[in-house]
């Protein structure tokens, strides 16, 4: 299969008169890390919310190429009655949040169990009578939760409250929780925000391991350029809601348009 996992085609997002994204097009290749970067207010998070189904894009298509062929994210959201952003996750896109959104008063394992609600036995009767099928599903869910806790190096915190964990661990727990939904694409919104250098290094190892060992496709928004250059295979740069550069990290790093957007340019250069 050569089709990219996620295909964003001419997406425009308007909030009333404000255009947050204009004709944005890019692809996310399978099994790699794609980074979405840009200065503050460039429309990265808006783009992210469109992809993860929290906003409905005003124009354009976002196609997820799953096993069942391409699926339009926007159409999932506007489905009558049952439609909504939860269907996007069920289609295979999981996400984390810029400001961590854990279930703070639930234990770490419970956070991961909630994420697996599609594979556990949700039937009321089977749960109350503890049928064998229910117990097997619960056991598998708990084992899967511990597997991801192991991957994220969080096993010793399994039975603590999520809100009690240090910040860096909460970040990793959020990634573990997103992974527990069994996604095709995981979207990380500024995963390194607020982390110290050693935690950032640990995080980059975690992301690289997701790709190399689990074949996970990752889309990441990040301001930490060191992290972006280190982990990503493909970088898309947004500025003022438009794609100004798209390519390998080396290509993007040397692109004059990107340098101009980040550092600014003098008057003469603009006129010239």
């Amino acid at each position, binding site marked *: 299969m050569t089709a990219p996992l996620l295909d964003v085609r001419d997406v425009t997002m308007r909030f009333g008169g404000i255009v947050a994204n204009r004709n944005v097009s890019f692809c996310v290749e399978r099994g790699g890390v794609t980074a979405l970067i840009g200065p503050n207010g460039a429309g990265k998070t808006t783009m992210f919310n469109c992809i*993860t189904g*929290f906003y409905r894009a005003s124009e354009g298509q976002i196609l997820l190429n799953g096993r069942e062929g391409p699926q339009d994210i926007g159409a999932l959201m506007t489905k009558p009655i*049952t439609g*909504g*952003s*939860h*269907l996007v*996750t*069920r289609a295979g896109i*999981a*996400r984390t*949040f810029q400001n961590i*959104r*854990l*279930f*703070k*008063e*639930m*234990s770490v*394992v*419970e*956070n991961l*169990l*909630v*994420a697996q*609600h*599609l594979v*556990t*036995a*949700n039937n*009321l009767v089977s*749960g*109350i009578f*503890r049928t064998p099928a229910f117990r097997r599903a619960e*056991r598998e869910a*708990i*084992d899967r*939760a*511990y*597997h991801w806790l*192991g991957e994220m*190096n969080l*096993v010793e915190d*399994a*039975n*603590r*409250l999520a*809100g009690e964990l240090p910040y860096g661990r909460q970040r990793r727990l959020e990634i573990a*929780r*997103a992974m527990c*939904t069994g996604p095709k694409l995981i979207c990380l919104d500024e995963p390194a925000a607020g982390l110290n250098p050693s935690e950032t*290094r*640990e995080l*980059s*190892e*975690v992301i*690289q*391991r997701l790709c*190399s060992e689990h074949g996970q496709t990752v889309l990441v928004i990040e301001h930490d350029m060191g992290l972006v250059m*280190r982990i990503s295979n493909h970088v898309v740069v947004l500025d003022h809601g438009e794609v100004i550069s798209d390519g390998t990290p080396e290509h993007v790093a040397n692109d004059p348009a990107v340098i101009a957007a980040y550092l600014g340019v003098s008057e003469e250069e603009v006129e010239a």
Partner: protein
Amino acid sequence: MEQNRFLTLLKQALLTFTVSLVLFGPISGLVLDGFSFRNELTRAVLLAAIVTAGRIALSLVGMTAFGRSIAGKAAGNGSGVTVMTGREKSPVLILALIFVAGLALPFFADKYFLGIAILALIYCLLGLGLNIVVGLAGLLDLGFVAFYAVGAYLLALGAQYLGLGFWSALVIAPFLAGLCGMVLAFPVLKMHGDYLAIVTLGFGEIIRLVLNNWLEFTGGPNGAPVPTPTFFGLEFTRTAKQGGVPLHDYFGIAYSADYKFWFIYTVLFLVVCLVVYAVERLRVMPLGRMWEALREDEIACRSLGVNHVFTKLTAFMLGASTGGLAGVFFAVHQGFVNPTSFTFFESALILAIVVLGGLGSTVGVIAAALVLTILPELLRDFAEYRVLIFGVLMVVMMIWKPRGLVRIQRPAFFPSTAVKDSDTAPLAASPEAAR
């Protein structure tokens, strides 16, 4: 140091005295006498002096080690949520003891006390139902009494028009109440929580007003009679009225009006036990976990693929079902229903039970239900001050124990042994660690 402490004490006393004088001066210092005032300022000064003395006494106690330890205990409860260690002793023995004691209660209690016990258990049931909606799913429901009324009137009107008995009503009531809950909640669950509170408040009033005004159907303010329960065709009245055999004739024992209450109490107790079991199971089931996750963070839930509307709907319906169940017992216990039993005050009382017990805590809700129904009975002499005491209790609770009486404990989970050994490779062992 000593001087300093004395000075703060003096300052506190002076401030308290001034504030209470300002408050008490107009209230009790000036007495209306015909068209003029009579000056009774000495009374105000006296009252203010008493308040100041109390304040100083409190401060002095607070300065001793004993007082400090009490204050520390009251304040130092943190978030009030802990995770179990998985090594707790199983409470089976205590639960079995409570179960047996509960079943044996009718043999020791007199009729008056049994009546209170039935009422307390009904409120337990209501509290448990509302706890699902407010405590677990975090949806504020101000009209819970509507579902209670649905259950009660189902038995009363069902017996009148369809010939339903106690048992069939007991089976149908949860479904009917759940259906009402669904019809009510579906349009508003997509919105933010506050709207739901207002809609449920309105629904509670609508049900009451309909019951009050639809004279031909519900009997209006005159209410409707409820038939006595039957047990496999045996009736609890002196002479059979529903085509069965009176219980005392069947067993050849003397008639007593208490048998009916014994029967209601026993069935109610068993139903409450079943509901408690179901609610406790729910907390470790995926559905219950999703409710609690929704209460914690709805956006995160959506990002995990949880259908938030559907999940809230299940919580609302299950809560309503439990309310309907309680309504059937209320009707059969009273033998008569009318709309005055289903006012907003009742909703507020149930909500108070849930809040007082600690949102989401089953033990807390049961304890609060028992306290809030038995206490007013014990305090019959202070009947006028009931609501006042109630309000003071709520304010005090919100200040010192905002998370309710009982600390919530979250269950602990452990992996099956197979995974524990193989899959916990430390992060440092990964090839990228060298970079």
